[in-house]
């Protein structure tokens, strides 16, 4: 058994965003921090929006939360009225110590997981998310790495083997894990191309904030082109030193 990893699921709850098909099953083994947020213009006081929309928003959030609970997840709900969705998401990640954020897109039952491994930094959190979410499923996990020019095959081998061992310790049996390494290609293109045959992508954030991911950093091209759910593993906010 592994600890349930905390996964943030941000939903613009009053703008018709809902939980797409398959997402609740995807996070059945996680601790879901369900963030319903509503972005209001600066002319409006957040409390003003709350007076009018709280009931409707709470009802929806309640219903979405039940979806996750029925699938087996533990759920924590938060409803936030804000002028700045990005700040709200970042703060919630920090306050609830979320390991990853889900970009919720519909998916079929998960059989193949693509894990984009960038380097040693944050690799432990990556492992905890993969093991926590997919450890008890039968999904096969593919560790995917685009090697830099200066990286030797030996370096790459050490990196991926270490991760395989770590995942094995955490309950993802080694036989379920494949590794794939590519060279001489643009990292983003490579990931999006490779992700086409997979159901879910797990990747590290390219920027200190998830929100930049959602709102338009290079990585969101992955989500856009991939069309399936993406788990964005967050950096450890507390420490900048590489974890063991």
């Amino acid at each position, binding site marked *: 058994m592994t600890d349930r990893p905390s996964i943030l699921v941000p939903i613009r709850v009053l703008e018709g965003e809902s939980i797409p098909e398959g997402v609740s099953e995807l996070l059945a083994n996680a601790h879901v921090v369900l963030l319903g947020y509503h972005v*209001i*213009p*600066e*002319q*409006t*006081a*957040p*409390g*003003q*929006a*709350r*007076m*009018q*929309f*709280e009931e409707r928003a*709470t009802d929806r959030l309640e219903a979405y939360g039940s979806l996750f609970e029925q699938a087996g997840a533990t759920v924590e*709900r*938060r*409803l*936030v*009225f*804000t*002028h*700045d969705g990005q*700040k*709200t998401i970042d*703060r919630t990640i920090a306050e609830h110590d979320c390991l990853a954020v889900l970009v919720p897109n519909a998916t079929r039952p998960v059989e193949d997981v693509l894990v984009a491994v960038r380097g040693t930094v944050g690799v432990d959190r990556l492992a905890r998310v993969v093991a926590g979410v997919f450890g008890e499923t039968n999904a096969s996990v593919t560790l995917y790495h685009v090697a830099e020019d200066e990286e030797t095959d030996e370096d790459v081998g050490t990196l991926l083997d270490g991760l395989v061992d770590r995942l094995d310790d955490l309950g993802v049996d080694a036989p379920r894990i494949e590794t794939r390494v590519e060279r001489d290609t643009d990292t983003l293109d490579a990931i999006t191309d490779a992700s086409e045959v997979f159901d879910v992508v797990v990747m590290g954030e390219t920027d200190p904030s998830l929100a930049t991911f959602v709102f338009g950093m290079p990585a969101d091209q992955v989500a856009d082109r991939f069309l399936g759910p993406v788990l964005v593993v967050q950096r450890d906010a507390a420490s900048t030193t590489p974890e063991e």
Partner: protein
Amino acid sequence: MADERVDVESTGQNVAGQAPVEEPEAVTDDVTVHDDEVELERTIGLVGGLAIGIGTMIGAGIFVFPGLAADNAGLAATLSFVIGGLIALLVALPTSELATAMPRSGGGYYFISRSMGTAYGAVVGLGLWLGLMFASAFYLVGLGHYASAVFVELGVELPFSPVTGIGLLFGVGLTALSIGGTENTAKIQNVVVGILLVVLTGFLSYGVLDAVGVFGGGSVPEEFFSRGYFPVLTTAALVFTSYLGFAQVATVAGEIKRPGRNLPLAMVGSVVIVTVFYVVTIFVATSAFGADRLGQFGETAMVEVARDFLGLPGAVAILGAGLLATFSSANASILSASRAVYALSRDALLPRKASEVNLRYGTPHVALLAAGGPILVLVGTGRVELLAEVASFLHLIMYGLMCVALIVLRRRNPEWYSPSYRVPGYPVVPAVGALASFGLIVFMQRASIAIGVVVMAASYLWYRYYAGSVTLKGDI
């Protein structure tokens, strides 16, 4: 400043059967928490707070008043601005303490209703709403003067004075913009304030150097109290409208990040910054022309001062800055007025409908119309000095009562009252602040005082009629 809350059991209901919205569970650096699961995000930082304060204030003191003030008080108008700044500071300090103890939307209205009861709260809250309308109208008329000056500069001769018409036009435009616009207005406000400060700093530095004779001009020595001593105080009462902005920071106290730190810094900081700018401006302006000639130029005197120093480019720069400044001040006041309506409606002192949010734009269209509509009527009068004084009157009542509220709270010292910033020099500072605020009113024109008193009486009667059974006072 974690997890403190005002211990208030607001009770009762208004004529329409609406009860005040319950108080939040907790207030933290980042959010206001209701019912454990619902959070209101705080998103305005220190820069944003300063921009609200400075942006609201700077339009009046520099771009509208120098001519009028010099006309009234001569060179000693400089002293009038110093007096205004001192009073503002004496109020800003206690306000900071109250705001860190109760960082909620509504500012002065909230502090007073929770510490002194609903009746005082209603008079102040409705007075704040109306006072902000007078202030916005005043800024819009000022804007009208600047826009007219642009026509004059372009050599366009109009058969009528366009001041009021332009003011009305911008009043309608601003209201429509705040209802329908979802752009990031705060960022724009920050940029506008930044540009203004840069333009003014450049202009004033040149002016000061010129005034002390660096560029060979030098100023004509003139008698300081050329109009006597009394006009110094009446002028201070008139120009006090230039110092109304810091309390607007408290109106959005519920949205300020790290309120314990940022609220005092933003309020006191903006008062100090604008006071320096005002005093230097009036010094430069009077030394350029002497008080008599300056007075003849009226609302747009600064344009002539700039022309004197830097020729046509200077005049154009100050014209542009004046338009920007009066526009940003009017805009900030309309938004604050809408916040005041929300705070009153939340507490059932106005119909709940008044703070309704528009489904299409997400903006409080009723509150904005309730602010923008009456402003047009006020702009229609076109009377700069009267509008300014009534605005000041209604704010000064609130300022005085805030100081009193602070003394009340400190004496009773209820358990929930734990401000993270405490005013230095208690009880002298709040006591002097209260006396000075109420005292300044005495020096206003009779008409302004009369209108102010009528507004207060009407507010009280409205409270008795509409929400007589509503109790908002905290446990003190």
